[in-house]
């Protein structure tokens, strides 16, 4: 390869390069300085994420591919990267006081998050099945370790192991699907695949490709924890340390969903008729399971796991629509989901009594008397997740369902909306506990400056989302248009 071309290739991957170099440098710093430097490294990781975000924004306009079409940068990738960088930075900030207190001193923690983020950025920018897999594995391996980072805790180790076994299985299935696609289509590049299927559109794709596609969908559905590949989610959410759960709930979900959308719409866009029914089903099943299975949960982390399954179902409705409004709705929903989820987990992290973490939902009883501000914030997040206007969650649902109406998926719309009523029941139950019931002992105070600020910030954004809806929607529109420009 000519050096000139290499320089051009490198120039579009500045954010990824920066994160990779940053991660390795910080790993060295940690290795030499030991665990005492964990806090400093954490803050440096936040700085790296922030700078990477700026580099993403400063990146090239339009659709640029590099590294022999393995890697793509466009508005869609940029939008998703900004979201996942924000999610990672916010959850890392949440994790710092927790780690200091609960005895997770390892400096590897922030570094692993940085590696995971690198994998996610790679996923979002993948333009080839190979680079896609590379990104997914880099991400997943970091996440397996993070889930089990509390080596001496049975729950944490179990969560990590479970996540690893099931995750490896799903990666294997996806890889098998990719080989099938490669075998029948003769290429792994997204551009080649798209061109090939566009030619074959009238005669239909070979059956091997369809089987491979279904396997790929199964693997991706696992990563976004959509039904029926959701079983790991509640256990891992419950077992992993809470800040890790917060991280799991946000950044990897956003990255995997963005990847899902790109894979479905770009290389396999012309096989829409074949995959639409599959996505239709997993969206429907996720919404329903997310709504019904959460009702009986008593552990707030498990509840959030089912809640996130439900949310992913709603997001997948936008994908099932398969049109530009749908992709736009997906991005808008993910943005809103980011703020709601980070805020909720910040509240969960503040649930401590006598120095111990509380995860039982009933322990929230009477929070509106003992800690009115936190109760208000959590109530805002719950109402928003239930999709009650004027809060942010409503607008996410509005746009994915608008896309579904455009695609004439009426059953999906009606069942989805009704399942949101069922889901409203358990969100309301939390509000009921906080506002209607008699108070228990107060949670430990103070909750910490970082947590308070994140709770305040995200709840204000969730409440006043009306005012920033238009710019976010505009950004999402540009990003979605990038997917359909080719």
């Amino acid at each position: 390869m000519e050096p000139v071309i290499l320089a051009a290739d490198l120039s579009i991957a500045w954010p990824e390069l920066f994160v990779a170099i940053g991660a390795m440098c910080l790993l060295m710093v940690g290795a030499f300085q030991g665990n005492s430097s964990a806090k400093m490294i954490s803050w440096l990781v936040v700085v790296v994420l922030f700078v990477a975000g700026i580099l993403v924004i400063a990146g090239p306009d339009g659709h640029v591919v590099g590294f022999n079409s393995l890697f793509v940068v466009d508005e869609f990738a940029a939008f998703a990267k900004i979201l996942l960088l924000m999610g990672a930075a916010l959850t890392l900030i949440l994790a710092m006081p927790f780690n200091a207190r609960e005895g997770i001193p390892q400096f590897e923690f922030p570094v692993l998050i940085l590696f995971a983020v690198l994998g996610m950025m790679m996923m979002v920018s993948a333009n080839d099945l190979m680079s896609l897999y590379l990104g997914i594995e880099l991400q997943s391996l970091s996440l397996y370790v993070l889930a089990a980072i509390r080596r001496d805790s049975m729950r944490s180790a179990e969560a990590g192991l479970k996540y690893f076994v099931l995750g490896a299985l799903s990666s294997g299935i996806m890889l098998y699907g990719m080989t099938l696609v490669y075998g029948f289509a003769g290429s792994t590049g997204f551009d080649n695949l798209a061109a090939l299927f566009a030619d074959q559109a009238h005669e239909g794709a070979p059956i091997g490709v369809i089987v491979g596609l279904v396997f790929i969908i199964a693997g991706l559905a696992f990563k976004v924890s959509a039904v029926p590949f959701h079983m790991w989610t509640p256990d891992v959410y419950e077992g992993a340390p809470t800040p890790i759960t917060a991280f799991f709930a946000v950044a990897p979900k956003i990255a995997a969903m963005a990847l899902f959308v790109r894979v479905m719409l770009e290389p396999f866009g012309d096989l829409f008729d074949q995959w639409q029914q599959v996505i239709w089903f997993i969206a429907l099943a996720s919404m329903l399971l997310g709504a019904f299975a959460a009702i009986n949960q008593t552990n707030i982390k498990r509840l959030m796991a089912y809640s996130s399954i439900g949310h992913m179902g709603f997001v997948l409705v936008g994908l099932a629509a398969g049109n530009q409004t749908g992709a736009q709705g997906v991005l808008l929903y993910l943005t809103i989901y980011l703020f709601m989820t980070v805020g909720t987990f910040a509240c969960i992290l503040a649930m401590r009594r006598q120095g111990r973490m509380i995860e039982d939902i009933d322990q929230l009883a009477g929070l509106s008397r003992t800690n009115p501000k936190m109760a208000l914030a959590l109530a805002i997040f719950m109402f928003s997740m239930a999709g009650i206007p004027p809060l942010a969650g409503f607008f996410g649902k509005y746009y994915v369902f608008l896309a579904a109406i455009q695609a004439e998926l009426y059953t999906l719309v009606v069942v989805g909306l009704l399942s949101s009523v069922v889901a409203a029941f358990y969100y309301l139950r939390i509000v009921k506990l906080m506002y209607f019931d008699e108070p228990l002992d107060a949670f430990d105070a103070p909750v910490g400056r970082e947590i308070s600020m994140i709770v305040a910030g995200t709840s204000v954004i969730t409440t006043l989302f009306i005012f920033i809806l238009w710019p976010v929607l505009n950004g999402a529109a540009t990003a979605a248009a990038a997917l359909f420009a080719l």
Partner: protein
Amino acid sequence: MESFPVLSLTIFLPLVGVLFILIVRGDSETVDRNVRYAALWTSVTTFVVSLFLWINFAYTTADFQFVEKHEWIPAFNISYHLGVDGISMFFVLLSTALTPICILASWKSITTRVREYMIAFLILETMMIGTFAALDFVLFYIFFEGVLIPMFIIIGVWGGNRRVYSAFKFFLFTLVGSVLLLAALLALHFEAGTTDIPTLLAMQFPLEMQRWLWLAFFASFAVKLPMWPFHTWLPDAHVEAPTAGSVILAGVLLKMGGYGFLRFSIPMLPLASEQFTPLIYTLSIIAIIYTSLVALAQEDMKKLIAYSSVAHMGFVTIGIFTATQQGIQGGIFQMLSHGIISAALFLCVGVIYDRIHSRDIARYGGLVERMPKYAFVFMIFMLGSVGLPGTSGFIGEFLVLAGAFQDNTWVALLATTGIILGAAYMLYLYRRVIFGKLEKADLKNILDLEPREIAIFAPLIVLVLWMGLWPQPFLDVMDASVTNLLQNYQAALSAAGNIAVVGR
């Protein structure tokens, strides 16, 4: 008036009050007192501002007035569009008038978490006014749904023993209806490419689509109104809500359903409305007769009034769907009149509930001996509810029945039996509570109305009598808009009829 955003001011003034309430500091007694005054003054100011709407109202036009339009999400043709016409103007006034009354009524009965209570009420006021003033469907839906949050909190925190059950039932029932409305809204948005209500009003939709949309609208508005058999949340919510919560629920929230039928179902979906009129008639008549009979058997005062609300709302739906000038004007008038009378009746229950802490009819009797003023006030509203000539209730029911008679005599006949039953259960209630022997020991020391309570009831009495004796100013406001609504409705029907004839 284009330049002065009086509607936005009315909508968001209560939120300014909320900000004031949030910054009140001091010991708890001072805070409670200051919060009450802040809420009262905010709501009174809002009411005064909203009076400008009536004073500057142009009677001759059917167009929307005080219009404000700003771009919000231009790519999807969603805008911040406000305005009122002859149909919605009084509902805005009803909301702004009842809120200060509610705040006064809660002055002494709410002693815990006063700050949160007043905040909830002021947010509720914003949402209510917004619902009636919105001229964009998405904006309408945001306000319409947003009402649920403060009301859920009001019932659940300050309600009676079964408040949790009632709050959930209220929220979830309404939400089921609302999400179907949302589905219809999405379909309209996609079909028309805009959510601007005046634009949507001018469009024609195919019959098949109208049917589905109509049913989705119906699901939401029939729950909200409520119509039989979707009314079961109402008695629970009313019984458990604090007095002021019941007042707002009966006075304003129920009217959102009727307003929805008038603003959306009839003008946007005329063909489907025409087809489904028999369904509405049937359900309304069942509501009127059945719930009146149920009311007759109630032991709980609030429950009795709640069931009477369902019956009275039956008249409203009949009036609206007669699609005659009298019927629709009567329906609107009946909603306003019921908004005042039922609110006042709940306040009447609240007065004795504050003293004795019971809503059981059997706990009372002979109150006239100790509480003559109260007996008088209660009598006026009781008679208003019965529909005695000279009260506002009479005008509403009479116009509705006059409209119904033109359309279908059987409907008129059956609906009239509801008036008789209404007289029966209200007079029976009045006899048991006010007359009879004063036997219970604790009733012997019960105190009559205090000045604050008189101040609450006085404006309501004036309104009931004014609307009953001289309804013309109210009807004049509606006239142009209703005429226009009917013209468009008839034009749409005859256009569809012509197509059908040509098609043959």
